[in-house]
């Protein structure tokens, strides 16, 4: 039979089963549980409730037994899932992803969901085409959705509208009430009770606080069908590195920033400087002109210096001559002509030099006549000798002098003392003292004097522009007379023009204020004086307070008198 079946081809159509075909009993019957008889229950474990029949536990079986599920822990409702298998017997591991979701929820959890559609084998070709649904289907979807949404919307709108508006009349119901205990002698057998709703204020704030209901557990997360994110490589991290912002003003964290980095950060070197050509030319020209001017100034200064030197030399010469002459005069030699002194001296010197040797070249024939001349010559010689000696002494003194004295001496020779210069007329005192001082230093309001103590209330303790000429500059007294600008410069047409301009007749006051004429013409700005008088009587009040007199005290007499009067009046009335 089996061989025949193998030889025959497989049936094309599945055989149709008749409805009344009773002989085919269901093949898949659960195997009936067989309870082994007593004494053979060694390796048998009663687990299912059927194993116990109607009875209790089997004491000879040493396993935990739960007849009619007595004592079994109810763990069935735990969060463990029953293992499910698909049609081919493969375990459906994605059942857990489906758990907790509705039936029509599609969960993509398998590898095939990652495979592109045209590479998938489990999908037929008609499932691959992406045809939009027909209009009828779209219409059906729209209708279905509209119905669902309208239901929601209506509920929402109704909820938003005010409901439970309290009836102002108050719905009242009448209840007949018969007390159960008829204790007190039947005075009241029955009562009619009217029940009315308490009218609520619709604008009353809610009496009970709404508590927020904590959100339910979220729906289980979908299986993730992507690879986990890769760790950023060092390169990537470097690319994403954003340097911290560093302020030029604050450095709370105390970072140390090198100066060059700082300079780079502030963008100073980013723009290259472009200088106009003309600027270079201009600066070159300026430089040349400057050099030229300096050269000229130097030349001029040199020239002046030379002239001055020459002048000085001549003056010195002159002075020396004068001094010579004066010396000679003192020595008794008649002042010779200014042109000859050198010649006379030379002659005298000559004569002296010769005389020293007792020359015999003198004319003997003119001896008598020469005696007078000899005397003179002797005198001269004597003079010269003395002079020589003085000079030698001076030289010796100078050679014996200490260094500092010699230095002083030299200094004196080179640079004469100021008194000497004054005596010689070389140094002159400066012309005026004022010119030496800076004019800007005068008339300055010093800050210290004008700002007094904080507590002093003397903002205007001195007039503005005090003692300066500024007041005169800023204020021009505009009197009626002598103001030429005010009246068109005095000319006829000027005045007429001014009158034309002066539409409101404000230029000249026709009628002055009374007593204004008596006032003297102001020369400066209006100045105010500090009013020292006690306007509000504060000083007086303070003085009183210091004296310690009470206000009512000085009126004491008056008060007493008034009292007396009143008393008198009262007594009169009594009478």
């Amino acid at each position, binding site marked *: 039979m089996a061989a025949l079946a193998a030889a025959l081809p497989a049936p094309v159509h599945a055989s149709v089963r008749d409805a009344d075909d009773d002989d085919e009993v269901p093949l898949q019957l659960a195997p009936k549980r067989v309870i082994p008889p007593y004494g053979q229950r060694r390796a048998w474990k009663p687990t299912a409730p059927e194993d116990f029949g109607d009875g209790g536990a089997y004491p000879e079986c040493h396993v935990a037994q739960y007849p009619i599920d007595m004592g079994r822990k109810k763990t069935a409702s735990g969060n463990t899932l029953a293992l499910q298998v698909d049609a081919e017997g493969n375990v459906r591991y994605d059942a857990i992803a489906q758990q907790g979701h509705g039936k029509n929820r599609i969960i993509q959890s398998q590898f095939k969901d990652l495979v*592109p559609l045209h590479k998938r084998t489990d*999908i037929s070709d008609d499932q691959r085409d*992406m*045809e939009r649904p027909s209009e009828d289907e*779209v219409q059906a979807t*729209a209708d279905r959705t509209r119905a669902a949404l309208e239901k929601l919307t209506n509920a929402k709108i109704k909820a938003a509208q005010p409901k439970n508006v309290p009836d102002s009349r108050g719905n009242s119901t009448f209840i007949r009430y018969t007390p159960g205990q008829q204790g007190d002698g039947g005075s009241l057998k029955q009562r009619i009770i009217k029940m009315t709703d308490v009218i609520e204020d619709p604008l009353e704030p809610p009496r009970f606080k709404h508590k927020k209901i904590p959100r339910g557990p979220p729906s289980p997360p979908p299986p993730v069908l*992507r690879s986990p994110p890769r760790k950023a490589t060092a390169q990537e991290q470097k690319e994403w590195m954003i340097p911290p912002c560093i302020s030029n003003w604050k450095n709370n964290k105390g970072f140390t920033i090198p100066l060059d980095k700082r300079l780079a950060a502030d963008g100073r070197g980013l723009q290259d400087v472009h200088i106009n050509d003309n600027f270079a030319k201009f600066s070159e020209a300026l430089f040349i002109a400057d050099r030229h001017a300096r050269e000229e100034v130097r030349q001029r200064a040199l020239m002046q210096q030379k002239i001055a030197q020459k002048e000085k030399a001549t003056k010195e010469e002159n002075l020396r001559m004068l001094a010579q002459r004066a010396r000679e005069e003192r020595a008794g030699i008649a002042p010779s002509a200014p042109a000859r002194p050198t010649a006379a001296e030379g002659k005298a010197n000559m004569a002296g030099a010769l005389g020293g040797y007792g020359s015999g070249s003198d004319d003997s024939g003119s001896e008598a006549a020469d005696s007078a001349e000899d005397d003179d010559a002797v005198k001269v010689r004597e003079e010269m000798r003395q002079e020589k000696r003085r000079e030698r002494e001076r030289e010796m003194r100078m050679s014996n002098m200490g260094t500092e004295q010699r230095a002083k001496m030299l200094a004196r020779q080179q640079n004469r003392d100021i008194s000497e210069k004054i005596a010689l007329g070389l140094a002159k005192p400066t012309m005026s003292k004022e010119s030496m001082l800076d004019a800007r230093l005068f008339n300055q309001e010093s800050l210290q004097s004008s700002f007094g103590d904080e507590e002093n209330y003397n903002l205007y303790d001195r007039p503005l522009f005090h003692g300066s000429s500024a007041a005169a500059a800023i204020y021009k007294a505009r009197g009626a007379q002598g103001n030429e600008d005010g009246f068109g410069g005095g000319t006829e047409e000027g005045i007429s023009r001014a009158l034309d301009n002066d539409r409101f007749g404000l230029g000249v006051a026709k009628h002055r204020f009374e007593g204004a004429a008596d006032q003297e013409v102001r020369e400066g700005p209006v100045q105010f004086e500090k009013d020292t008088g006690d306007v509000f009587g504060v000083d007086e009040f303070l003085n009183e307070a210091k004296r310690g007199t009470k206000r009512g005290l000085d009126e004491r007499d008056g008060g007493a008198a008034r009292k007396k009067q009143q008393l008198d009046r009262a007594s009169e009335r009594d009478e």
Partner: protein
Amino acid sequence: MSVDASLPALDGLLRASGKRTRAVFEASLNDRYGEDDIIARTRLAVKIRDEYAEAKDLPAALQAQQGGVGPARPKQPERKLITGPVADATSRAIATIAPPTERRESTLTSSSTLSKALALHKTQRVTQPTYHPQWKLTRVISGHLGWVRSVAVEPGNQWFATGAGDRVIKIWDLASGELKLSLTGHISSVRGLAVSPRHPYLFSCAEDKMVKCWDLEQNKVIRHYHGHLSGVYALALHPTLDVLVTAGRDSSARVWDMRTRAQIHVLSGHTATVADVKCQDSDPQVITGSMDSTVRLWDLAAGKTMVTLTHHKKSVRALAIHPTEYSFASGSAGGNNIKKWKCPEGTFVFNFSGHNAIVNTMSVNAEGVLFSGGDNGSLWFWDYDTGTAFQNMSDIPQPGSLEAEAGVFCSTFDMTGTRLITGCADKTIKVYAEQAK
């Protein structure tokens, strides 16, 4: 040279000697070769049998799975995995009207194993990309004082609206690019715009948590949709229902009834900012992409998630639904960052690989051109059916702006699909157009 010329030609000699050799050894050669051949064949057969006997047939499971893949296949006309968009409009209309395919059962319930999924990679169905003309920058409109973050084209294709970081919504003439109107009212940058095809309304959402409805007949705000807890980043209108979906930084998408301003649903489930939201008329009616790098498809009627797609590695900032194909694309940052999904159940279709940037925006037109604009100003144009890029270029920031201001924030095709309007980080609106063939 002269020596060479004197020598006889070698060819003739060789041929002659070859002929002679064959003549001499003809008989014996034949025999020996024949023997060798037989021996070699037997040896090979033995070896094959010895080594590959086990691997000769596919395992039973695989064979059952594979079915008639082997010899029977060439007889069938090759069926493409993805058919390109039909060229002319009439046939397309027929296609959309045609009776729908029956609803497929989800991939999860279908029995499959890893080995099966892996087994048949060879049988790839390759489709040729369709030709698309190149796109070229045709107009740069500057007028905004901030980043242009949102753009929307009117259904009549007469004008388009842009919203920018200067908190102003501007309306421009599409043909001439002239400013028609500026709408003020938002107090933070305008992130989403939509013009309703069935009402004279413009909807806008901004980072100031406000969603506004503007009446374009009076140019006034007539409604506010109040409820977002933080900035609103995206907005979408339902094509058939009077429902508005907004999504934002409070990691939720909210469904509003347009007229009554009531909040119908809070689509919560994302764990980070929802960066983009899109609506379509059939399930899934709402699709959201989030900064938690997931895309969720929502059942609008129930307000529940249908599918969560966790394939993206980085935050999903852009979504684009194809106007005629039942699929959508989502874009994030990094490599392999644009993915195409088949619609009702969110089956992964393929990657658009190559755009290595943060994809800020994507748009698809009916011709099957997918545009993706990056945060670094890279613009890629893809063939939507095959996922091949046919053009890429980079955004040129307008003169006077920084190099870093090349970036595309928003984009949309106009209603004809021949012009692409992008909003850029250099505060301009750039219009690209298809080049004539």
